[in-house]
């Protein structure tokens, strides 16, 4: 079966979804990711969905679940690179993904996560935390 790779980068986990998600793949990703967070003690998860062009309510829920689970395991989740059509679909489906942070691209997502982690460690807001949630 196909597998979506989860890359570790320092304190962060990087997931880039390069194929169109189907239900079992998404469920496997959810399980793998939770295991991985537990194993590495990662503090942030960055999911790049810029190549995903189709999303349904199930996928939306999985992403929401991942965020909630990561939060319980003390890691923040940022979804980056969502396509306009996907965003509109999610809104029309009534899934505004509250609790998930989004960023336009990987770069902005990284700095957002870095900011969150710094804040958690030092209680101090770094200078360049100019991004939005």
């Amino acid at each position: 079966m196909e597998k979506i790779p989860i890359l570790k980068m320092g304190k962060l986990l990087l997931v880039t979804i390069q194929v169109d998600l189907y239900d079992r793949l998404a469920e496997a990703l959810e399980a793998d990711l939770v295991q991985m967070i537990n194993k590495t003690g990662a503090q942030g998860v960055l999911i790049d969905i810029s190549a995903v062009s189709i999303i349904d309510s199930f996928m939306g829920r999985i992403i929401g679940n991942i965020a909630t689970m990561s939060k319980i395991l003390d890691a923040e989740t940022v979804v980056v690179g969502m396509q306009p059509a996907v965003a509109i679909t999610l809104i029309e489906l009534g899934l505004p993904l509250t609790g998930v942070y989004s960023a336009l691209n990987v770069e902005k997502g990284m700095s957002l996560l870095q900011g969150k982690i710094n804040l958690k460690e030092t209680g101090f807001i770094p200078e360049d935390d100019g991004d939005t949630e």
Partner: protein
Amino acid sequence: MKNETIKILQKQKKKILDMWMNFQLTDETLREDLMNNDELRMQSEDLVTALVDNLKDENIDTPDSPDFDSVTDILNGISISRAKQGYTSRETGIFVFSLKQALLVLLQQEIRDPQVLYDQSLKVNKLIDFFGVATFETFIKGREEVILRQTDEITEISTPVIQIWDGILALPIIGTLDSARTQVVMENLLQKIVETGSSIAILDISGVPAVDSLVAQHLIKTVSATRLMGAECIISGIRPEIAQTVVHLGIDLSGVITKASLASALKTAFGILQLQVTRKQKNPLIVE
């Protein structure tokens, strides 16, 4: 044996045309500003020729027979072009019905027997009435096309997304927001966010005449979609009346940054991006 009327009509084609032109030209609703007489004559001649040439014994009672396809085609063409040129429906109607008048006058001159005249007049009446109705249908269709095109144009031009600063987009909304327009607005905005990599979008609604619960919901949808993309959305240009309606309707806008004017929204955006606007240092000599 050929129908009497058809023979008369085919023989007197020229006379019909002359009479018809005469009726049209003497009518007070003639629009010489929209079409000159030569053009009108050409249109009329085409129509008379098509009508008279296709008239047969079998089809004089059945105006929807395929024989008259060329007549209906010509009528459709005329009627659509007239709709686009700005003719009124009355003027277009008179164009067709004055042909009936010409035909009837001609029949009256040619047929002596009252019974035959009555029968034939009825037939001609029915035929031309059918064409008249067909003309109206196409006229209205032509008008609707014009309206549709204008609606499209309005939707096209009414949702410009402008970049007012590096990383800040503004979207002035003018006119009522319905579902279809919200869709266009949302798509344009999100597309532009991706293209420019902007992290803040300002939605200015000072041009929206009224906000009801549906419009508010559309606005909230747009804001949520922008957030999903990873950008922040500010709604500006909220007039006092709109603030009143929103509160009276019980719409919750607490999750959205709202500002009274575009200027204050821009200021907030600068704040989020940690930018600062400062006055340029004046010449120290003049200051002192």
